[in-house]
């Protein structure tokens, strides 16, 4: 089974996202900020990361840049999932190594569509 790390400081969002990715047959792990996510990735790289932007301790974009410098950190497919919905944020995310980008609010159809875009489902 593929593993998806859900990174969001909202417990509610993580719960909703978990249900959706589990329906897509992923094992789900959760992290509440970028640092927790990085620690989790160092223990073992997930197949996919669903990544919020604004979080305490370490935000999503800093996590992404750090992840891409880790050994094996180029492998996980990273899908941003954030309320930042303007072109400059999208462009910055893509330049920093994101694979896809979801603008909140999201639902299961959007996640499935985006995951299929990057070959995860």
């Amino acid at each position: 089974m593929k593993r998806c790390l859900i990174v969001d400081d909202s417990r509610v969002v993580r719960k909703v996202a978990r249900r959706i990715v589990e329906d897509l047959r992923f094992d789900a792990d959760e992290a509440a900020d970028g640092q927790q996510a990085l620690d989790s990735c160092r223990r073992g790289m997930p197949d996919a990361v669903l990544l919020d932007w604004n979080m305490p301790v370490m935000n999503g974009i800093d996590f992404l840049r750090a992840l891409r410098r880790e050994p094996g950190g180029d492998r996980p497919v990273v899908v941003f999932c954030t309320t930042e919905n303007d072109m400059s944020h999208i462009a910055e995310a893509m330049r920093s190594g994101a694979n896809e980008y979801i603008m909140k609010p999201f639902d299961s159809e959007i996640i499935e569509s985006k995951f299929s875009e990057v070959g995860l489902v």
Partner: protein
Amino acid sequence: MNSQDFEFVAQLLRKRAGIVLTGDKMYLLESRLAPLARKEGLPSIDDLIHVVRSRREERLIAQVVDVMTTNETYFFRDKTPFLNLREAIFPQLAQARRGSRIRIWCAACSTGQEAYSIAMMLDQDTSLTGGVPVEIVGTDISDRCLERARQGLFTQFEVQRGLPIQMLMHYFTQQDDHWRISERMRQMVTFKKQNLIDAQYGLGQFDIVFCRNVLTYFDGPTKGDVLGRIAGTMNSGGFLILGATETTSGISQAFEPAQDRRGLYKLAERSVQAA
């Protein structure tokens, strides 16, 4: 709503659009007519239907039909048809139509995602048609959808269904909480009103016809008639693309399935001679 009113709307839809509304769709009727009743300043659906029945105002009748259509669509829907375009259809037509042009018809295009998907695909890889110019025509019965299609304005939800983020970045600009497809893409597509149950289509001849997820609302004989008329608009060697759950088999002899290509049909040669 009483069953007479339901029957009235069902008849109207069938006569005007060929759409078959079965009794289990009562809920659909209520959820779609309620906003129209409000817009018309009428207290309930019952009042709306009463006004339609007594006044027989063309404008209002057309709006009832319009709001009753199901307009679900998304960019690059089902993927396979676009793969078929790239791998099978364009390579053949690039040869066959050299020195001429390729005309594509999106019949029942709803809000335009299908037509614009083709436009973006062609723009991204201009070698696909070997330099043969392409014209894309999108038609629908719904004025409401056509208006949105022409504007090329999509919600945040719509641009996240089927559309890769790179394409959003490349072809769209943000307008308040909507996204607008570029002027260049809009110029590649023409949107027109065409009711598929009309006896004649004034759209010219086509090489490729997308007719997806609309036949499913019609009864058997209507499906056959529509496919027959579509065949009549097609050039020899033309291709028909149906929805993932649709087929011509048992409905029309004018087409034959393309080998190993799901949802893809070729105009049968004898139907060209007959036409």
